[in-house]
């Protein structure tokens, strides 16, 4: 079949309901929908402050049909650890405890709790849906914001000056059994990773790129295309790391030029050919490093 048919590989159950308050074209909402398809109804989620605080619905609503605990910003992994402990005491080994955090809650304010949980190898699945800035508060830079990007705290005159934090390597360094990246443009890969993670005991980490039309200054309808281009350009390669040691690419990455991806996003509109060239160089260099990791296992 020439068309990449995926419908048979996507579980049909829906644990997310319509009427949620995400912006149109929200990558993070789709990420939750797909992850829950992979996890099924025996799932509990610890939800720190992030866009999903809103998306999950105001009291007395909930947009997901699983137990969800709204938690302080920096506590996703810790609250999840507590939920897990309680379930352990109840003899429930079947339910997956999901920590669901944005990039701010993962890369920045929640990193300590995440590191603690990962180091203890808490039996939780931590998913970071990454929209590359503090979007819920109105687009402020986070340590997941890519080099060169505009945000309200990195204005175009002085855009983000540091590369995105390598969270996958950080998590791998904890020697957790499973860490991976995924993209909402590749639902089969994403769900496969979720299902794989679900079957593993210990801390599992999934980093999902989730484009944000208002924050990236793109059209609402470009979300999936951008999530796809991020992968195809090697800006956000799809990878898996087992036991912190075995690195693997999940697919062939053609290495499309970064320029079309950059040019489509308003948050990069101030960048000229030189800066875009620099991004390409950085992507290429990082790719070489990833290839070495895959080859050698670091």
């Amino acid at each position, binding site marked *: 079949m020439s068309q990449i048919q995926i419908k048979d590989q996507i579980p049909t159950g829906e644990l997310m309901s319509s*009427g949620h308050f995400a912006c149109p074209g929200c990558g993070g909402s789709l990420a939750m929908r797909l992850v829950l398809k992979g996890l099924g109804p025996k799932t509990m989620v610890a939800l720190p402050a992030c866009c999903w605080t809103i998306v999950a619905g105001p009291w007395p609503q909930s947009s997901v049909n699983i137990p969800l605990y709204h938690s302080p910003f920096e506590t996703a992994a810790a609250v999840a650890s507590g939920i897990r402990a309680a379930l352990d005491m109840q003899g429930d080994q079947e339910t997956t405890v999901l920590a669901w955090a944005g990039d701010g809650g993962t890369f920045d304010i929640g990193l300590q709790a995440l590191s603690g949980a990962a180091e203890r190898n808490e039996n939780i699945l931590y998913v970071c849906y990454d929209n590359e800035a503090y979007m819920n508060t109105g687009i402020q830079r986070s340590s997941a914001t890519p080099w060169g990007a505009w945000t309200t705290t990195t204005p175009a005159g002085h855009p983000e000056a540091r590369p995105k934090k390598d969270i996958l390597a950080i998590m791998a360094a904890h020697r957790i059994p499973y860490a991976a990246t995924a993209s909402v443009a590749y639902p089969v890969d994403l769900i496969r990773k979720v299902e794989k993670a679900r079957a593993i005991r210990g801390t599992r980490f999934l980093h999902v790129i989730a484009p944000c039309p208002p924050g990236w200054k793109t059209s609402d309808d470009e979300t*999936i295309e951008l999530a796809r281009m991020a992968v195809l350009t090697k800006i956000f390669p799809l990878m898996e790391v087992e036991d912190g040691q075995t690195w693997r690419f999940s697919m062939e990455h053609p290495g499309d030029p970064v320029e079309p991806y950059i040019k489509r996003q308003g948050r990069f509109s101030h960048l000229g050919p030189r800066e875009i060239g620099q991004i390409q160089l950085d992507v290429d260099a990082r790719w070489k490093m990833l290839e070495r990791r895959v080859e050698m296992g670091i």
Partner: protein
Amino acid sequence: MPEKRPDSEMVHGVPEVAVSSTTTMANRTGSWKYTRPVFQDMVAPCNATCAIGVDIEGTMNLVREGRLVEARELLLRENPMPATTGRICDHPCESSCNRKSFDQPVAVHSVERMLGDLALEDPLPAAVVRIRTGKAAVIGSGPAGLACAYHLVRMGYEVSVFEGDEEPGGTLRYRVPEFQLPRVVLDREIERMRALGVDIRCGVRLGRQLTWKYLERFDTVFLATGAHRSRALGVEGENLPGIQYGLDFLHEVGAGRAPEIGARVVVVGGDSVALDCARTALRLGAEVQLVFWGECEKLAADPAEVLEAEREGVEILYQTVPLAIRGSEQMAEEGAREPANTISAGISGAPTGMPMGLECIRMTLEKPDGYGGDPIPAEDGRQVLSAQTVIIAMGEEPDFDLLPLDLKHDQVRVAVDELGRTSKSAVFAGGGIVEEPHTIAHALGSGKRAAIGMDLYMRERAGEKVEAPSLAGLRYGRVGNFSITRYRGDDPVRRTGEVNEVAGVERINMAHFAPMPRRVERRMKPSDREGFEEVNLGLTQKEAVAEATRCFNCGTCNQCEMCLIFCPDVAITRREGDKKFSISYKYCKGCGVCAVECPRGAISMTREGL
């Protein structure tokens, strides 16, 4: 979660612990949107470029789903002879195929041929019940006449076809060589039409056995006498013996008679007739050269067939302009090489043919290393090609000698409107005598259009109050041919509302496709080609089905569910039972992700509330 759950602990309107008790379904987030996605099937470019007006995309979709019976039914709705067209149509559908921007166009004709061949094996259909009172006469049993008769019979009319030749088929029998179209295929397809109720009477030529007076007993007449008068080359020596015209030559071969040709044959021409003449002469035992004034890519024939001709041994002299034909005396004077011995022509002819020569000049481009420029005669480009037979295939035109005087026409075409109506009431025309390319597809298409015109005419004549259909609405896209399915309004394939616009390549999301090479038909090895056996062996059924899966199904939902999978708002669902897709506009925020991710452009974004 149930939509609303009781909470017994409510005090001051809130529970003890701030837990949820309902979903977000109460929020009508659909009110945010300013654009609205609509499932709207569009027209695939293949459909829009098919001169017959076949729902190619729909057929491909059915084949992809393994519904081969329904696929050939759909095909036969529009095209009475898919086994024939699958072999000899020049398939513009493939030139317009969006897939060519991805890897290679879908081999539509191979799939059509497979379906056509399957249909040949089906039992003959029962005759169509005559539910109409009108009677129609069709003059000429070429593709235009057959198509017209076929569609009229299927609409429930009584139709008589009058053919001047001994057997039906017109150009399909007397112009297309058998190695392209085996007669068993043609015969069986005509047999199927006869079984449906098409009455074909052969050996009845208009103006001789058939008079206009006789035709007055019919309610309406379709003229499809074709274009079989060859055009002259217009050079000195054209009246020498040993000169033949392409159509006459092919007609003789098609009639099973052996035209007399020499051992060396030069064909002059630049279209498929010229090519077929060359390959036929080759099969009759001659050495063949084909003289064509243009470059290779200008040759008006399927490039694959050009290649086959060359592989078989036809020497094609491109950019060569004939100047004159020299008789044997002149040849001797000019010291030309004595031509090879005359041979007996392949079928029955006695050795004839005078040694003669075609004087021509090779052209070159004004700026040989640059682009363009006008062709100019090359230095030392003059040559004389020796031959015993020169076949001139400079195109064809209709013979209007027998038409009624009051029928408006010029030298080469009868004037008709889009329903085939001529200037004379009750008389319709199509095929080679009207203004359109002389291809089988156009002929079949014009027969269909006229059938619709004649249906309307006869119904009106019978006193029925006929509401004229929107002719634009019958076309696939703006310029495609009419669709019988649209005319009759019982489309079995379309699943959503339609918009009659072509889904161009910009509407295809290539990310959802993987490269898959086009299946190549097997052909008989040139060394094994003997006589008039069919050269192209086609694809196996399995291969053809696989080829159909390459179809993008441009513009038409094929239920791949990408829209549903990528919707961030869970607003697209498939209904229980009929599995139809539905968009919940109560919740759809109009982001447009579904429209972008639809691999085939079957979802359109429309302005909301305007």
